[in-house]
């Protein structure tokens, strides 16, 4: 395998898995955690290192291999942090690192799409996603069936996605 080919594979791997690892890390630690970005880079380095050292033998998929390393590192981080945090002050709130330009732009488009929705869709999204009521609770609040709630949510999401793809 040429050096160029290895470089390409590494690039491809980073491009593919970095957002997935970042998503998993932010979900586990909270998007405002200042250590998220460092942890993501560290996990990626570990993955590359283990692949190069032949630890990945193809027994599972590459995705599962990356997932396993990510999950272990998150658990280790939480263990370390819970020891440290007994004595350390709470970190200051940090701007959401996920709020990249792309995400901000997407969020703007979602806002626009929400504004176009008919009241019946807005009502159901408000109760289901904002108030985090269950499908049955939303159904009770609106006097409709749970199946109808699913239909309304799915259709509203379809309308929003349509707006995002324009």
């Amino acid at each position, binding site marked *: 395998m040429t050096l160029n080919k290895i470089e390409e594979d590494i690039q491809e791997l980073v491009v*593919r898995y970095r957002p997935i690892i970042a998503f998993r890390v932010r979900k586990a630690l909270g998007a405002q955690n200042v250590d998220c970005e460092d942890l993501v880079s560290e996990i990626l380095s570990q993955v590359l290192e283990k692949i190069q050292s032949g630890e990945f033998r193809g027994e599972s998929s590459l995705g599962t291999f990356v997932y396993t390393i990510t999950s272990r590192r998150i658990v280790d981080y939480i263990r370390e942090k819970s020891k440290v945090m007994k004595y350390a002050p709470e970190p200051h709130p940090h701007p959401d690192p996920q709020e990249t330009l792309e995400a901000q732009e*997407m969020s703007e488009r979602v806002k626009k799409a929400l504004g176009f929705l008919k009241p019946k869709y807005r*009502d159901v999204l408000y109760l289901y996603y*904002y108030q985090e009521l269950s499908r049955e609770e939303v159904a009770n609040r609106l006097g409709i069936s749970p199946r109808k709630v699913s239909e309304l949510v799915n259709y509203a999401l379809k309308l929003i996605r349509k707006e995002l793809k324009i």
Partner: protein
Amino acid sequence: MRKCKFEDFIDGYLLNRLSERDKEAFEEHYFNCSSCFEKLQERDVIIRTIKNHPELLITEKTEARVPLLATLKKEVRAFFTPRQLVLAGLTALLVLVVIFVIVPRNQAPAPNFFLTDEETVRGSSITLISPVIDMNQIPSSFEWKKLGENIEYQVSIFNHQLLWKATTKENRITLPEEVKAKMVPGEKYSWQVKAFSPDGTLIAVSSRVQFKIAAQ
């Protein structure tokens, strides 16, 4: 395109509703399925936008809609199990049946008083004509509405107790002087008439009407 079975986990994962097992399974899945990860990211942005801008979704109806009826339903459901609800409904039905069907049937009907074989008067009412309001002077006679022929009326006048009682077959009676002498201006009195058929059966009773004789 066939829908991936894990797509239904997206909302549950983002809203932290999955069991630990499903959560781990879904996490492993989206590390392997780029289609689900794309949808997950997209849904995440949508939910975060909704969380940050709920005002975009609040309609006039959101607060006002249903609440009254639906909240009532919800409250009732929260209070009663379905079985209790059915029992409560049946009890309410039973109470209504008792009030509107059984009780009216068991009530004694208004008495019918028989004047003759042909003539019947439904009991209770004799209309008093005079005096029924406050008087300037002691009334010299008492008058009421006639019920029929051959009826004997019994007239009673009360202050705190029975002052005088007399019978007549007319529909008016003149107050004797000795009774008038007992009545005092400024005092309150009441009177009542009862009607009896020729065989002495009570057939009607008037209400007891109060009147006051003005002070001189």
